[in-house]
């Protein structure tokens, strides 16, 4: 079954490749509705991104017992996403969007530890997002008389100002919910952590990117960055709109980063990290400059790769050990060395460390902020980046380093090869993007042209060019490797004998001898310091859940109040009818 669906997943890629970037199909549903696919450079990028992700995840599913319906739904999901990114009008977009919503809902429900509350959270937020989208699209229709993107784009500037703002707000809300902007992220963490382990990678790596695609579509294509600038005016070197979005993104990423550090469940940490990383993208997506778009695109690519890698890695570990908490894992480094290296590459990129692709995308993001002179936003981004080192380290330490917290961890074997193949591919991609950061500029430039922005100069594969300095990824990575090897050889040559097979309990422990019962894994203690820092404590204490819980309670109360009306006896009904009639009569006559 796996191989069948592997081939099936290859089909859309081949199909897309066959059309060579110029796919325009349309099919009339009714006299008003047309289903149309229209390929743009932006859509093509996202299409390949999602399709290849699905392919890799399907490879990883090989060794996990997976039912036919799971595969079928996943395939349906990939087709729905293809429809979203290739859609030429809102109807197609929305149909794809909703099929994505419910097929992912059923996929999530296949997890063994899902509960009704999380499912409800997911679907309600998804539907709220969809309804916000539908509101936007019908309002746009009422002025453009068409759901076609190009028609809406052409008639957008003729709409009244308040309608323009309403449209931007509605679409933004919808896509923000999907991307999990803080405040609207209530569903994200539970869903990501409780979904089937491999499906979490799709959720985080691909599905959240559909929100980003939507934002690009609206800001870049439908509204247009020039129009945004005209509408909202200019602050510093950027737009007011970009400034607001910048703060939204930065606050999202700072809060989510701190929340991530304090999580005990591996997938919850990754979920918060996902929110934080998408915060970066949102921070620059509205800036309306070439670098803003390029940074957001680049980070989209890198984040997809990283999150696929990390979630597949974690899924493999969870499948292998049956544990998903930092306090229950640990010390797997020499049991599963390949997995460890893969995760290491992932977190180096996640932290934005230089030799790998993570830095290239961060650099683009920072350049975007510099370009618009949004200094404090840039500082915020850097700050959240610095805080993210903590959760990156927690991720690798909690699972692989330190001490095994239970006996069965000491006898684990390396995870199945099918989990490792996609990880190796993704890790190589991260190295490649790190070494050749400039190569991606070629992909971005057509999109910038599509958005009628200036293109970014391209010099060579290895060099990332920017207005305020550039960096040579190839040089950095080769210098790193050369120095590393040099120092390694040096230290290797030094005679001081390294005693390698040291027992893991043989540590400096104040002269004591720790035993198997001694709690030596520090996985649990991470982030407790943070609660004592006033500023961070203020963030960690707050949560969006009281608000939504209160909303749910109030809704229930209202429902209870209203339903009391329906439990009266027949006399009351009659009296109500008569009273209503007389009331209406007097109003009507007078």
């Amino acid at each position, binding site marked *: 079954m796996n191989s069948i669906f592997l081939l099936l997943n290859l089909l859309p890629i081949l199909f897309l490749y066959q059309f060579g970037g110029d796919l325009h199909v349309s099919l009339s549903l009714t006299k*008003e509705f047309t289903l149309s696919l229209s390929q743009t450079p932006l859509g093509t990028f996202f299409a390949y991104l999602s399709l290849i992700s699905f392919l890799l995840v399907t490879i990883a599913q090989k060794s996990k017992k997976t039912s036919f319906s799971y595969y079928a739904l996943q395939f349906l999901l990939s087709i729905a996403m293809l429809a979203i990114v290739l859609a030429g009008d809102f109807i197609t977009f929305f149909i794809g969007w909703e099929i994505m919503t419910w097929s992912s809902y059923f996929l999530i429900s296949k997890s063994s530890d899902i509960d009704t509350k999380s499912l409800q959270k997911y679907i309600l937020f998804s539907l709220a997002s969809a309804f916000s989208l539908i509101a936007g699209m019908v309002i746009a229709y009422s002025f453009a008389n068409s759901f076609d993107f190009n028609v809406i784009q052409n008639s957008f500037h003729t709409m009244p100002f308040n309608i323009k703002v309403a449209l931007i707000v509605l679409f933004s809300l919808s896509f923000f919910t999907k991307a999990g902007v803080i405040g609207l992220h209530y569903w994200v963490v539970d869903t990501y952590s409780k979904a089937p382990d491999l499906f979490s990678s799709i959720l985080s790596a691909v599905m959240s990117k559909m929100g980003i695609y939507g934002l690009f579509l609206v800001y870049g294509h439908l509204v247009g960055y020039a129009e945004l600038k005209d509408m909202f005016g200019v602050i510093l070197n950027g737009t007011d709109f970009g400034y607001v979005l910048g703060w939204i993104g930065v606050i999202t990423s700072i809060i989510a980063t701190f929340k991530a550090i304090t999580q005990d469940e591996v997938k919850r940490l990754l979920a918060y990290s996902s929110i934080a990383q998408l915060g970066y993208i949102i921070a620059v997506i509205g800036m309306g400059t070439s670098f803003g778009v390029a940074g957001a695109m680049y980070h989209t690519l890198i984040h997809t790769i990283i999150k696929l890698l990390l979630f597949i890695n974690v899924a493999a570990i969870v499948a292998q050990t049956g544990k998903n908490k930092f306090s229950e894992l640990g010390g797997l480094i020499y049991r599963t060395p390949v997995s460890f290296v893969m995760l290491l590459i992932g977190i180096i990129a996640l932290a934005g460390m230089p030799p790998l692709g993570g830095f290239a995308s961060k650099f683009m993001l920072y350049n975007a902020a510099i370009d618009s002179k949004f200094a404090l936003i840039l500082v915020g981004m850097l700050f959240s980046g610095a805080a993210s080192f903590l959760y990156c380290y927690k991720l690798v330490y909690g699972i692989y380093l330190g001490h095994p917290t239970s006996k069965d961890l000491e006898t684990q074997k390396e995870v199945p090869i099918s989990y490792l193949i996609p990880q190796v591919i993704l890790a190589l991609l991260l190295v490649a993007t790190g070494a050749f950061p400039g190569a991606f500029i070629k992909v971005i430039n057509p999109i910038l042209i599509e958005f009628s922005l200036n293109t970014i100069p391209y010099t060579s594969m290895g060099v990332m060019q920017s207005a305020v300095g550039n960096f040579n990824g190839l040089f950095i990575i080769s210098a790193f490797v050369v120095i590393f090897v040099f120092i390694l050889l040096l230290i290797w040559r030094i005679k001081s004998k390294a005693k390698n097979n040291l027992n893991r309990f043989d540590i400096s422990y104040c002269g004591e001898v720790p035993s198997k019962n001694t709690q030596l894994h520090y996985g649990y203690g991470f982030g407790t310091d943070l609660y004592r820092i006033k500023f961070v404590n203020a963030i960690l204490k707050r949560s969006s859940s009281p608000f939504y819980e209160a909303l749910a309670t109030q809704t229930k109360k209202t429902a209870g109040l209203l339903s009391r009306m329906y439990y009266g006896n*027949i006399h009351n009904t009659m009296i109500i009818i008569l009273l209503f009639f007389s009331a209406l009569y007097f109003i009507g006559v007078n």
Partner: protein
Amino acid sequence: MSLGYYFLLPVIFSFLTPYFRKLGTSALRGSSVFLTFILFVQTLEYTGVSLPQISQFSVAPPIGIAFVLDNFSLLFLLIFTFSGFMVSLYMLWYFKANDNTNETRFYVFFNMLLAGSIGMILSCDIFNVYIFFEITGISSYALAAYNKDKLGLEAGIKYLIIGSIASIFIVFAIMLIYLQIGTVNIGLIAQRYSEIDPKIAVLIALMLFIGFGTKAELFPMNFWAPDIYQGSSSHVNGLFSAIVAKSYLFVFFHLFYLFGLNTKYTLLIMSLGAITFLVSEFTALNQKDIKRLFAYSTLGQLGILFMALASNSSDTISGALFHLASHSISKLLIFLVLGILISKFKSTKITIVGDFKSLFLSIVLIIGFLSILGIPPFSGFIGKILILKGFALSHNYIAIAFILLVSIVEAVYFFRLIALMLDKKRTKTSVPVGFVNYIVLSVLAILIVLFGVYPSLLTHYTDLATNALLQPHSYLQFALGVGL
């Protein structure tokens, strides 16, 4: 076939039912299937004919009946006959699976119900409308109570009382009209309605509004409805939801537009529809009884229909009619599936949807749910988006916001049910579906999907129906031409 047979055939079959019973149960059941099949096929034939059409039966002039079929009533006729056909097929299974001595009684009133509701939408004489109104009413009371259990009897009695009150209002209205204009022909009334003294006109409008509004389950006259749904069998609920409520809705809006009430009362009906939608969806949240839950859901959808149909704009109405058709099919599907579950578990708690194990039932049930929620690629989506698009074109953004916000509340309980179905921790019992149900339910589900992916099948008719409703010249011509 003359239009009159739409009324006559069911009546005749209804009266013949005891004799069919004597021929054997299969003849009894077969007769109903045959009848509904004939009616449905006949209706399909009318789709290709130029409309309106008229046929009259005069006993001795001026006593007689005249039927007019225009595009608006054709749509309803399609829905009714199709739903009737589906239900009668379903009953083949139902009576086999459940020992029920009331079989004959059911078929009598089922045929009668069809006769009444079809007569109501075809008649062009307001007094005949009233008569059919009563026929429909009486058969529904009987159907509600035919289980003869406590809840069923309570439902029947309640329904009877409320129905009588509604009829009183209608009779008064008809009397007033007759006193003022001296005719009961709808065409003539429509022409001369403006001549009525405005104060009396208000009174007539309100009485008609209360009478039909009560039956069409409009807030605040719908407090009886959930009790009735709770007391009746599930397939009867399907009939109520797909046929009965829709037939009252038809008359309500037919008169609404013919009498030119749309100029004055649009806002009132729209806001009442909105409140219906809001109140019922919120109330549905806390329901523990599955039939009651879907009663509220039906009320809510009717609320949307009231909002959209009263909106005076052809786009919205066309969308509303699409939604109406889609809702009839989806609700019928849901109620039939629930019937299967209820007869298996002998319980009406909402948890029964989490207890059964049948892939087929799960899939069709979820299709029904998603369609009602308006999620693509199912027919409910097209209906909803058409309605919203219509509101958007008339720049009625408040209505859009309202529908979408309340829809989220609706989603809460629908997805709670779906989550129950998907909950792997519950112990699941397999449920026998029955061969005929496979056909019935798949046809319904396929139609939902078909209208979802290929809506122009249906939009063709809804557009014609909208035109017929908003520009009733040809209808009026025919109605006036009734030579009684």
